[in-house]
Each structure stands twice: as structure tokens, then as C-alpha cells.
């Protein structure tokens, strides 16, 4: 008899306990602010190169927007007069966790929009949920082309170009600068980003430099940190060009170990997303490295200049002591895109806080100016941005004591991005039909 009671008590107690905790933990507040959930890496390997600089830039810009410190057309305070209130969530922990946290942001915290996601796995996992919940979601950073090539969404937008652009531009740079490439090798991380980047680069080279031979392609584990064996293998191979889409600590470690062994003196190195390690590596980044910034970001944007770029560049540098690399630029273009969409929607609805539907309608096909150039929602039926790109070569400026980019080539958005409805890989293999380059 005792055991019956115990069993009953324990089963019901456990159920009640969990239900009670779940029900009790609810919080919601409403006022006339625009609540935006920001999800980016605050811990783990992608924090220092992407998450934290992006959010540093984001905090700075939100603050400036709330004070109305930006020039026209962004001179309205906040988003159309609504003060911006941001809730930050750490992106570390995997896609499963992010789906749950996204639901919590929308259903529990009642945010008006979510801006986030660096990891392409998260960018694939979250959109269907946004669609299900009819929540306005802006992907600001991730690179995989699959999001809008495999799916179609009403409430989901990506304000940054996908990664195909990086490697197409890199290959174009070889031809336009007349760099002789008889053979090329690759060191890319062993996950979707690394494999996609290498595939795009090989395909682009196949079109632009059909005689160049792809030799060895190495895929070290992500966050491996030790590249001695890979460096030996590449040095033994002696290719003319070494392609890499490594990023963050991996790229820094690779450059340290590779340059110590003089690899850059024996072959040309091309880094698809390499700009963001310049502030940390400083002079340890050798001269003559060809690199991109996943858009006209960082040094390339600064070299071109402009009111918006100069303002944010100086404020960022003053605040954080380093210049902004690609990540804050993408955060800025995302936030400004949301601002443009919200204000467009408010114009249409008579100045009320817009609903998710209204924001989505406003953002579809939108064009706006960002520090990184003109952003156009051209792909994925108006949900996927294209943007101009830039590739340059590193050169240490002895007088100023800082790294600069020289021989920068700028590419129009429509020159290095496929037209609407065409998959990036197919477009490359077909020889870039309809590309508009000057």
C-alpha cells in the first residue's frame, strides 16, 4: 500500500512541479518601444571574430539611432520614433537550442523582430519556425546559399549576400590582376562552410581560368588549431595559389604557423573572408595576401569612404580601440535594413507600430544604403540581399603603423551575385550568364 501512495505522490508531484515551474515563469511587458531580439555568438569559437564585434557595432548603432545621431535618411529617432530595446541571446549551443530560444523570444518575450544568426545551421533551422509563428526574422550574417535556394518564406529575410559572392570575386580578382595560376590548393574547415567555399572557388576558377589545376584540398577539423601537417602537405605540393576560407582563431593560428614556415613566400595566398583577423594579427599578417571581407566591408569600405562609413568607423574606433571589420558592417546593414522596412511600413499604415506582415511587405525587394554600399533584396523573391564586394591585397603601411589594403577591386552586386531564381552553383558553372560588371 505504501508503495502505491509513494508512486502516486511521486508521479503527480513531478508532473505538477514541472508544470508549475513552466507556468510560473512568465514575463511580458508592453510599452511603445520596438523590441528586437539579437542572437549572435557571445561565447565559443565564433564569438571573438563575428559575434562580439557585430554586437559591439550593434549596440553602438542602436544607441546612436535612439539618440537620432545618424544623417538622413536615418535621422528619425529609433525605428520611426519607437525607441529600440534589444534583448541579446548567445548563439552558442547548436540549432536545437536556437529554435527553442527563438520561440521563447517570440512567444515569451514578445519581441517585434529577431535579428541574428551567424551559423548557417541556425539560419536553416530557425526560418521554418519563424514562418510557423509568423514572426519577422532577419538573418544578418550567415553565408549558406541554401536558405532561400531550398526554401521560400514570407517572414524571413537575409540582409547579407550569401557566400558564393566571396569566392566568385576572389577568382575574378586573379584574372583581373593578371595573377598566374597554374595550380591551386585549398585548406578549408571540414564543415559545410569550408566545403561550399572550396566548391564555389573551384567552379569559378574552372570558368575563369580553365587551365588552372586544383591539386590538394585539405579539410582540417574546425577549431583544430594545429596546422603543421596541412602546411607540410601544401608545401610538398608546391601550388601557385593557396585558397582558404578559414576564419577566426583558426585563420589566425594558420597564418601564424604558415608564415613562420615561409609559405607566403612560395605561393600566393588568397583568403575568402580574411579581413577580420587583421586587427589582431597586425604585422603578423604578411604583405601580399589577397583577401576579401564578405562584402565591401572593413578596410575596403573605409578606403572608399562616405558619410555613413566615416561616422560609424570613427565612432567604433573611438569606442572599442580597433577598426570595425566585416561583422559590425553586416550588423549595421541588418539594423538599417530593419529600420528602413519599419519606417516604410509605418508610412503605409499611418504611423502605427507595424505588424510582422506589414514589415515583411515593406522589406520585400527593399533597397537601402548601408556603410557597406547599396543593399538590394534581389534574390529569393525579394528576401535575399545582394551587395557589392571588394577584394584587395595586404600591405603594411610603415609610416602609419597599420595594415592597409592596396590594389582593391570593387565588384558590383549584380556582377558577383546570380540573378533571382538561379542557384549560385548553377550560375557559376554556366559561366555567370547575365552578370552586370562594369
Amino acid at each position, binding site marked *: 500500500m505504501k508503495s502505491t501512495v509513494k508512486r502516486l505522490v511521486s508521479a503527480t508531484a513531478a508532473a505538477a512541479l514541472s508544470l508549475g515551474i513552466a507556468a510560473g515563469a512568465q514575463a511580458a511587458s508592453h510599452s511603445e518601444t520596438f523590441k528586437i531580439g539579437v542572437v549572435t555568438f557571445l561565447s565559443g569559437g565564433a*564569438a*571573438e571574430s563575428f559575434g562580439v564585434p557585430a554586437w559591439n557595432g550593434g549596440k553602438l548603432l542602436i544607441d546612436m539611432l535612439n539618440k537620432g545621431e545618424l544623417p538622413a535618411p536615418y535621422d528619425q529617432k529609433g525605428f520611426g520614433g519607437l525607441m529600440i530595446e534589444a534583448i541579446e541571446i548567445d548563439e552558442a549551443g547548436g540549432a536545437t537550442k536556437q529554435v527553442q530560444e527563438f520561440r521563447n523570444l517570440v512567444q515569451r518575450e514578445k519581441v517585434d523582430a529577431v535579428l541574428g544568426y551567424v551559423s548557417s545551421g541556425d539560419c536553416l533551422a530557425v526560418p521554418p519556425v519563424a514562418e510557423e509563428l509568423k514572426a519577422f526574422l532577419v538573418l544578418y550574417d550567415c553565408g549558406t546559399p541554401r536558405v532561400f535556394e531550398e526554401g521560400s518564406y514570407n517572414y524571413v529575410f537575409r540582409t547579407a549576400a550569401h557566400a558564393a559572392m566571396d569566392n566568385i570575386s576572389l577568382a575574378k580578382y586573379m584574372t583581373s590582376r593578371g595573377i598566374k595560376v597554374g595550380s591551386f590548393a585549398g585548406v578549408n574547415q571540414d564543415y559545410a562552410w569550408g566545403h561550399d567555399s572550396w566548391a564555389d572557388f573551384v567552379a569559378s576558377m574552372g570558368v575563369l581560368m580553365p587551365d588552372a589545376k586544383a591539386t590538394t584540398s585539405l579539410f582540417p*577539423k574546425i577549431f583544430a*588549431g594545429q596546422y603543421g*601537417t596541412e602546411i607540410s602537405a601544401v608545401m610538398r605540393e608546391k601550388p601557385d595559389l593557396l585558397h582558404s576560407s578559414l576564419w577566426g582563431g583558426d585563420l589566425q593560428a594558420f597564418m601564424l604557423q604558415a608564415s613562420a614556415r615561409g609559405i607566403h613566400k612560395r605561393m600566393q595566398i588568397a583568403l575568402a573572408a580574411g579581413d577580420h583577423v587583421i586587427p*589582431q594579427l597586425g604585422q603578423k599578417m604578411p604583405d601580399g595576401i589577397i583577401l576579401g571581407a564578405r562584402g565591401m566591408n572593413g578596410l575596403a569600405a573605409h578606403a572608399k569612404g562616405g558619410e555613413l562609413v566615416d561616422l560609424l568607423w570613427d565612432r567604433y574606433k573611438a569606442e572599442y580601440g580597433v577598426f570595425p571589420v566585416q561583422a559590425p558592417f553586416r550588423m549595421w546593414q541588418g539594423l538599417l535594413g530593419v529600420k528602413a522596412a519599419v519606417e516604410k511600413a509605418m508610412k503605409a499604415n499611418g504611423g502605427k507600430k507595424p505588424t510582422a506582415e506589414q514589415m515583411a511587405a515593406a522589406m520585400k525587394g527593399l533597397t537601402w544604403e548601408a556603410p557597406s554600399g547599396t543593399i538590394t533584396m534581389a534574390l529569393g523573391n525579394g528576401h535575399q540581399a545582394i551587395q557589392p564586394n571588394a577584394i584587395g591585397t595586404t600591405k603594411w603601411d610603415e609610416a602609419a603603423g597599420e595594415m592597409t589594403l592596396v590594389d582593391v577591386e570593387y565588384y558590383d552586386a549584380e556582377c558577383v551575385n546570380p540573378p533571382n531564381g538561379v542557384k549560385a552553383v548553377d550560375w557559376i558553372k554556366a559561366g555567370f550568364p547575365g552578370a552586370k560588371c562594369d
Partner: protein
Amino acid sequence: MDLILVILVDGLIYGAWLFIVSVGLTLVFGVLGILNLAHGSLYAIGAYSTATAVGIYFAYGGDAFPLGSYAVMALAALLVAVVIAPLLERGLLRHFYHRDEVIGVLVTYGVFLILEDAIKLIWGVDPLFVYEPYDLLGMVEAGPLFYVAYDFLVIAVSAVAGFAVWYFLNRTRRGKVMLAVIHDREMSQTMGVNVDKVFLLAFGAGVFLAAFGGALTAPMISVSPGIGVNVIIVAFAVIIIGGLGSIEGAALGAVMVGISRAASVHLMPELELFIIYFVMAVVLIFRPEGIFVRTQTRKI
């Protein structure tokens, strides 16, 4: 022929690194019976401390005697051990010696979670660099390739560290006492061995070796968040291959994994991700408890 030489050299360099990051783990397991999941975090703390200490050294006139930075690295690792080992061992781990090994794994998993954020709170997320020691010794031409001389220094240091641990355990009185504790904790206690002291000493040595692994690695990487996580899994694999608790085993396991991995990168790069598990599976099929194992027959 060149290829074989290159594979051997690359394999040894990587194996030496593997050994130095895993030997502390196997030592702690051997003596305390705790498989320390926080080992990777201690490695990271060692790397961060080294980065900070060597940075200070060069900022305050270390350029005059750059080789001194090697001493600074060792001292930084020692400092980590002196500060953290008593805190963790006395404050936490000793409550779990009588519990299941798996509880030990879980406790150190908790420590790992805490330390990862603690590192972030102390050093932030910006990477630190200390490449001076890496460049100091120049390059070495080996066959068709150039190597950084520092890589060979790592091999030498790793060999010395391994020998020192082995010598201490097998040839000194204190080390023999430690072996006795490994063999039979209760018996040693009844024979008047101060087991507490032995445990603290062993854990301290384990922390030092972890931190020292980090210190040696710091000059060739960007010291940034998350560097410790990935060390744990490889270190585990190495010591499982070698036999948990065996110093010789860790050495052999590290060299086996190192050379297999080098061979894979040079010959079949697509298998690199699996090579460590492959070696582990092969070894365990023939030696279910690793290459070197202290057999324990149960008294009935």
C-alpha cells in the same frame, strides 16, 4: 622516401603536442580515479596566462633577453597549478573520490562549464598573441620542407616532461608512494601514507601539465575562447588508446595517433576526421582496456 620522412616528422610534432596535452589527464586519472573533463579548460588557462605573462615580459624589457620568455612560460604554467590545483582538489574533487567514476566526469563537466565562462570574464573574448617565442629559434630545413625550430623544441620538451613524470613515479621515493596509492588506496592509508598530500600533489602535477601544454601551444595559435574544448576529445582518445592511467601508454598513443593522422593528411585527407577513432577502435579490439593497462584481479 621524402614522403615517409615528412609524415614521420609531422606525426612526431603532432604526437609530441598530443602527449603534452594528455599526459596530465592520464596522471590524474591514474592517481585520483577522476577523468578530468576540465583538463581542456586548464589548458586554456595555461595558454591565456602565458600570453599575459610573456606579453608583460616583452613589454618590460624582455627584448634584451628574449630566451627568458621560455622560463616565463613555464612559470606561468606553474602559477596556474599553484593557484588552481588546491582550490579544485581540496575544495571540490575530494568530495567525490568514493563516488562513481562517472560522477567524477560529470563534476568536472560542471567545472568545465564554469571555467569556460570564467576565462571569458577574466580575459574577454579578444584573442591574445605571443608569437615571440615561436619565432625565436628560426627555421630548420628538413628534406624538401621548412619547419619552425620551435616545433622541435616542443618534441624535446614533451620528451623531457614525459621522462620526468616517469622518473618521478618509478625512481623517487615520493613517486613510489604515489604508485602505491594508485595500486591500493586503503592499504597505503593503513600504512601511514598521507593520501591527501599525494592526491594534491598528483592533481597539482596534472594541472601543471595541462597548463604547460597550453603554455607551449600559446605561441603558435591565437589564444581565444573555445581553444580548450577541442583538446579534451583528442586527449581522451589518446589516453584511452594508451590505457587509462598509463604514462607510457599516453606516449605511445600520442605517437600512434600523430603519425596516423599525418599519413592520412598526406595520403587520404578525407579520412582525417576519423583517423583518431579508427586507431582507437583497432587498439581496443585487440586490447580492450588500452595498450598499457594495470590489470586488477579481484579478490574473492
